[in-house]
């Protein structure tokens, strides 16, 4: 295989992004559908290029870019998230007067950033990917230019993101000082080495973790999330809830899992992360109880889910982590897709009261939304249950029982607020007269694909687990 093989998926994605941006600038199509189709085709091509790399361990630039199988598995999650986002946005954007062709270009750029993040063992390259992702994310958040809330969200995201990057860069500098390299393996080796218990390395690692905690919204670094998620256009929110989180946890897992084996130094880091995980699950669930806006509620739910993922990282359960992310991809896009359908020209209906009587008015939409909510609440036999099962079971196996009890408590609380939406949809009479225009075939396509995903993962995940296992085998070297 050529020395540039690992570069192919990235080139395809970035090339597509540039092509879309150029077309938007010079062709200026009134209807942006061709651009969306182009973006989807580009993603499909990238997926093809990515899958071809499976098992090859292709690397370029002296190992600075290296698609191992785990990276490919995460890449598949990003690509699916990307496709779902485009499909949801297809009709949503024109309705909300935000029909800019740049959307697809920016989204592709964000995708390329995500792919870079999971395809390098070198932390500085990871940082590069993160920055590409972040900059496109800020722009995507503020896509609705005339909307105050969107602008506020974009500024907030930008400021918080910059803070996080600062932490991250400083942490990397300290790590480099401790390990003389930013290769993850070298860092892990340095921790195992004789100087492993000097202050430099752990301090750097903590700062890096803080930086990532901002990005993946762990309590207490989550304050920006609800505002940004609420202000951003719904498809973008759905994308944020899944893809950057997956990438962040992929990096965190690579970083923490090998270091985690070094018993004594990591014990403290593990304890800190355990507290963060517990807080994340509990605080987010408790705050979600008080939300009346469904989009904001889902933002809190996504924070709580980050807590569960952190438990997986602590338990060293890579398969559980990937499985949870795959299940969360379907649940989250299902829920946000249903939310995107609750809109019409110039208006969005995200208040809890707007959902009253939906079970009568739009039985299909309500039923699908209910399935995703019930899956998020962790009821069997849906994907969300099995995902939590694997993670918690691995955590108990590792002796993290108190953390699991906290997680189960958070699940119980979360069942209340998820089911409250179902209550409103099916058991309350409409409060006011709203007419969402639910003629959105592409969104329904997403919803049914997600339904399939949630059921398949909940009942017969078989092969997927095997794939994740193989992917993981390539990760731990």
């Amino acid at each position, binding site marked *: 295989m050529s020395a540039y093989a690992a570069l192919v998926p990235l080139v395809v994605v970035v090339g597509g992004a540039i092509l879309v941006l150029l077309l938007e600038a010079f062709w200026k199509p009134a209807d942006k559908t061709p651009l969306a189709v182009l973006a989807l085709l580009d993603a499909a091509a990238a997926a093809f290029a990515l899958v071809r790399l499976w098992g090859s361990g292709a690397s370029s630039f002296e190992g600075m870019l290296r698609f191992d199988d785990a990276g490919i598995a995460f890449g598949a999650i990003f690509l699916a998230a990307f496709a779902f986002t485009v499909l949801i946005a297809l009709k949503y954007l024109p309705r909300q007067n935000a029909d800019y062709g740049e959307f697809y270009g920016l989204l592709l750029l964000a995708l390329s950033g995500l792919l870079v993040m999971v395809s390098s063992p070198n932390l500085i390259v990871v940082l590069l990917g993160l920055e590409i992702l972040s900059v496109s994310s800020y722009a995507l958040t503020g896509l609705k230019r005339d909307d105050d809330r969107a602008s506020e969200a974009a500024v907030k995201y930008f400021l918080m993101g910059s803070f996080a990057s600062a932490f991250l860069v400083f942490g990397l500098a300290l790590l480099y000082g401790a390990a003389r390299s930013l290769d993850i393996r070298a860092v892990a080796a340095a921790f195992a080495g004789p100087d492993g218990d000097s202050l430099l390395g752990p301090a750097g690692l903590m700062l890096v973790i803080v930086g990532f905690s901002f990005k993946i919204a762990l309590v207490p670094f989550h304050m920006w999330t609800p505002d940004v998620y609420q202000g951003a256009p719904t498809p973008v929110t759905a994308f944020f809830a899944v893809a950057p989180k997956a990438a962040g946890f992929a990096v965190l897992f690579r970083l923490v899992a090998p270091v985690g084996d070094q018993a004594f130094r990591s014990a403290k880091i593990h304890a800190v992360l355990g507290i963060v995980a517990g807080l994340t699950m509990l605080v987010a669930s408790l705050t979600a109880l008080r939300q009346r806006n469904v989009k904001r509620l889902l933002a809190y739910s996504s924070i709580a889910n980050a807590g569960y993922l952190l438990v997986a990282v602590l338990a060293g359960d890579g*398969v559980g982590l990937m499985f949870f992310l795959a299940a969360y991809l379907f649940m989250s896009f299902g829920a946000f897709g249903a939310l995107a359908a609750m809109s019409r020209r110039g208006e969005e209906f995200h208040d809890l009261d707007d959902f009253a009587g939906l*079970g*009568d008015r739009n039985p299909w939409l309500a039923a699908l939304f209910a399935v995703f909510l*019930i899956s998020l609440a962790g*009821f*069997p*036999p849906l994907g969300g*249950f*099995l995902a939590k*099962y694997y993670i*918690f*079971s691995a*955590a*108990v*196996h590792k002796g993290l*029982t108190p953390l*699991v*009890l906290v997680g*189960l*408590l958070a*699940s*119980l609380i979360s*069942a*209340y607020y998820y*089911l*409250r939406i179902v*209550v409103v949809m*099916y*058991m*309350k009479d409409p409060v006011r007269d709203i007419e969402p225009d639910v003629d959105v075939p592409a969104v329904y396509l997403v919803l049914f694909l997600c339904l399939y995903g949630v059921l398949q993962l909940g009942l017969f*995940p*078989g092969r997927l*687990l*095997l794939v994740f*296992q193989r992917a993981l085998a390539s990760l731990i070297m």
Partner: protein
Amino acid sequence: MPLLSLITFLPLAGAVLLVFFPRERKGLLYGFALALTLVVFAASLLLFARFDASVAGPQFVEKAPWLGFGIRYHVGVDGISLFLVLLTTFLLPIVLLSSWSYIADRIKEYLIFMLLLETGILGVFLSLNLFLFYVFWEAALIPMYFLIGIWGGKRRVYATMKFVLFTMAGSLLMLAAIFTLSSLFFKATGTYSLDVVDQARMALNPRLQTWLFLAFGLAFAIKVPMFPFHTWLPDAHVEAPTGGSVLLAAVLLKMGSYGFIRFAIPLFPDAVEKFLPVLSVLCLIGIIYGGLMALIQKDVKSLVAYSSVSHMGLVMLAVFALNVEGTTGALFQMLNHGLSTGALFLAVGVLYERAHTRLIKDFGGVSRRMPVYSAFFLVAVLSSAGLPGLNGFVGEITCLYGVFAANKIYAALAVTTVILGAAYLLWMFQRVMQGPITNEKILAFPDMSLREIACFVPIVVLMFWMGFAPRTFTSRMDASVAAYVQKIKSRERVFVQAPAPSPAAVRGAVPERRPR
């Protein structure tokens, strides 16, 4: 033929098919659902016919690998679960038939949830793998949540949320205990297995057993419900539609007591022994408290609900007697309670459809206008109060016999259930059915329709059958119950919880890799 899978999943298949039926065609929807549940009942009768009463272990076993980590599709039926399965499949057609005029809107969804519920309940009774059991246990919660929440009374949303959160609080702790068991089993043997048979052979240290038992016990105690975890029950019962109440009382509560017999007691016998006094006293409090509360209820439906607390208290007390008589009596009484309380709820439903009230003071002298109804209602009342010749008597006497053998004081106190039961039931019957007609509306009540009679006849026939020929039923329980009691008494444990896995200890457990 995979008979058990057929019985379990036929309702699910029916529910999926129903999605594609036109929602206006009431007759077609009901006809299909009814026919389907009748087929399921017929299939379970086949089970009854082919059941070998001399075998103690599970029969009709089906095993298939599923998710790895010891999670298998493993179902089977033995003398303990057989009649609970039959009770479920028997009541479902009756419940559907009784809902014909009560459920006015969203009939299609109602029937779908009913069928889903049947699958969930049957799965709970048939599962022999802890994970599978948990899946069905939780899955049965969702349809009931909708049944109460959509078709319930005024405070339905409150009642259904309370029901779900109470149940879930318990079952999540059970889930944590399942994780622990899975991990312990792996550490002891080097393989994963969540099958009950394998798990029951693992020796656990007493302290751990205590915690695990508390986690399992809480989940089941909430479901039964045992005092003081019963507060969800009156709310859920009163607000649920008739069909929902019937299934809730007749079958869903049995999931709790069944859970104790199948899982909590065999898995943690040492802990059970330790907690026996506490549990028995809680049962006694439940018996007396439930009876006294039933006495003062103004609403017929909540009276029946509190009577459930009392009756299930006796069932659990008999279970905790841990002897053959007590266990047989508990199993038999579980069936009785299912039939008689089911019939009582149906009877209340019949009355409610006419009067749109359930307050005792609004009635009086109903039997003059509705003689046929009066007869059926009386049989149900007497069955519940334990009149000799009817099923309730046999169950109560066997239960008390078992309790007496274990502890005489408990038995003496438990007898109050008979006295209190007769008091609140007959007093209620007297106030509602007899005396002068005080409410003019009663004059316009039509007697029972043929459809309503059709709901009651099979139940009443069974009540007499179980009263006169209980051996039809208990003879099929004997072998399994004897084995169960012998097992908890002897406590044979094969595996020792050793730090290093020894291959020799892995007997019977199939080695399993990470998932396939």
